[in-house]
């Protein structure tokens, strides 16, 4: 679990990027930080691995203040994926993926074996292993970025708009595979996006930020769509909130039936702790009601 307690980030010029943030990010789930640009979502993310240091307050990972850990050591234990993937152009794909294992001092053979394993895992043809990033498509590069973050099997992954640089069709595919991957891996994922659709699709919990680094609402996607906390959130969700909500339920339904077929896989997304699986049930029921209402 990652906890923000009274965290503020103020820059020397007086700009407040994050304002008195209290946030609990559950372990093993996807938590999405969403909001317009300048809302402090990326700053919040970067305070977890000390790429940004808070001005006030503390960030703890599993009860441990991150400031007590050497930044390099801390970061090697946290997966990091950024927009445009940030792949090293001078390294082959396999060596890009093995970056953190190399830093941790694994021997080359073991690190590469792990990299090949991950390529398969994220759906990359092993024939690409010896290529260089510039020879890959945008979607393939993002997969490499995810594989690279997973290489040392960190319990936490920080993802900063990882899919926003690819076209919508590729993005949808990447999102699906990301969810599938997460069902197996159950990492604690903090995911930053400016796209509310992506947030609703991926998040177990969504933190909506507004400009000035204020947390406007922190809720499950369903709760967020059903009961936006204020006008800002309502506006941010946009006029298609109802449709989004329906789509959200449809996805849940689809997963549920898929889950029934493969023996309860839906639980992974609908939640393995009690409170959240209740939510899935309620949501399905409510969704049916809404659909019926819409048909009338």
């Amino acid at each position: 679990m990652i906890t923000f307690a009274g965290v503020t980030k103020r820059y020397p010029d007086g700009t407040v990027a994050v304002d008195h943030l209290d946030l609990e990010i559950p372990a093993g789930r996807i938590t999405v930080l969403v909001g317009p640009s300048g809302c402090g979502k990326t700053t919040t993310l970067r305070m977890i691995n000390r790429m940004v240091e808070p001005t006030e307050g503390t960030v703890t990972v599993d009860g441990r203040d991150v400031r007590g850990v050497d930044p390099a050591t801390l970061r090697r234990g946290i997966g990091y994926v950024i927009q445009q993937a940030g792949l090293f152009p001078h390294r082959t794909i396999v060596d890009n993926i093995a970056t953190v294992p190399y830093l941790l001092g694994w021997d080359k053979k073991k690190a590469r074996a792990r990299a090949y394993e991950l390529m398969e895992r994220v759906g990359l043809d092993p024939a690409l292993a010896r290529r260089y990033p510039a020879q890959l498509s945008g979607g393939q590069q993002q997969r490499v970025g995810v594989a690279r973050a997973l290489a040392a099997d960190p319990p936490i992954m920080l993802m900063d708009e990882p899919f926003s640089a690819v076209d919508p069709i590729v993005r949808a595919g990447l999102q699906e595979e990301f969810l599938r991957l997460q069902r197996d891996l159950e990492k604690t994922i903090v995911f930053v996006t400016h796209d509310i659709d992506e947030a609703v699709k991926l998040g177990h919990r969504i933190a909506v930020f507004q400009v000035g680094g204020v947390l406007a609402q922190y809720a499950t996607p369903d709760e967020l769509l059903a009961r936006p906390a204020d006008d800002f959130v309502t506006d941010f969700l946009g006029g298609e909130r109802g449709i989004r909500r329906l789509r959200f339920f449809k996805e849940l339904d689809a997963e549920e039936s898929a889950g029934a077929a493969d023996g309860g896989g839906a639980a992974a997304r609908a939640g393995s702790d009690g409170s959240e699986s209740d939510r899935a049930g309620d949501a399905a029921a409510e969704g049916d009601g809404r659909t019926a209402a819409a048909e009338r």
Partner: protein
Amino acid sequence: MNVIWNSLSWFGEPGRWSGPDGIPTRLLEHLWYSLLAFAITVAIALPLGLVLGHLRRGRAAAAAGFLVMSSANAARALPTLGLLILAVIMTSAGDLVPILIPLIALAIPPVLVNAYAGIQQVEPGLRDAAEGMGMTGRQVLARVELPVAMPLILLGLRTALIQIISTATIAAYVGLGGLGRYIVDGYSRQDYDSMAGGAILVIVLAIATQLAFAVLERAVVSPGVRPAERGRARPGTKRRARGAPPDAIPAEGRGALGGSR
């Protein structure tokens, strides 16, 4: 053309390939001055450029970078010959030092500026990813910034060495050896064949340097950042799936003497 034919016969004159005024001796002298000046240049300018480029953050580093780069660029305008004469006057002549000073002054700017610019221009996303994955500052410099900036750094080194080699001829003006002897002595004797012969030797040496750097580039620049590769490295291109990319001729439009004076 006649001049060249005549100078070719100069190459065949007796004693040309042996003795204290023979080509091998003069060539070695020339190389000795040049490589010594180059080594000192690299020792000074390369670390400075790399570190300043790496420390792009913070006002102090930026100010230092600006200052060094400006003076480096201003130093390009120094008249080399004037500097040589000045160095001769101010130090005891006959020593190597007077010739090294202008050569180093000439070579520092390209090395320094290219190393600085090369490192500084590394895409911020790469640094962010490198730091975010737990590389220390040094590791970011050595494992990411340096290899990515390598083509530009090598370009600076090559320019510097070619400039040194073509300028080291002026050593002869102050009584030192090197290939400049053939030019200076030829001039005083009105021996145009000797002058042309000396010039040809300097040109050949410069071309050899260019080739040596092409070999070096193949050895130390990753195919992923090789300028000649980038254009070809298109997604979906069905090239070799495995193994090293195809042989890249470090093709450049410029002539072999592009960097010389």
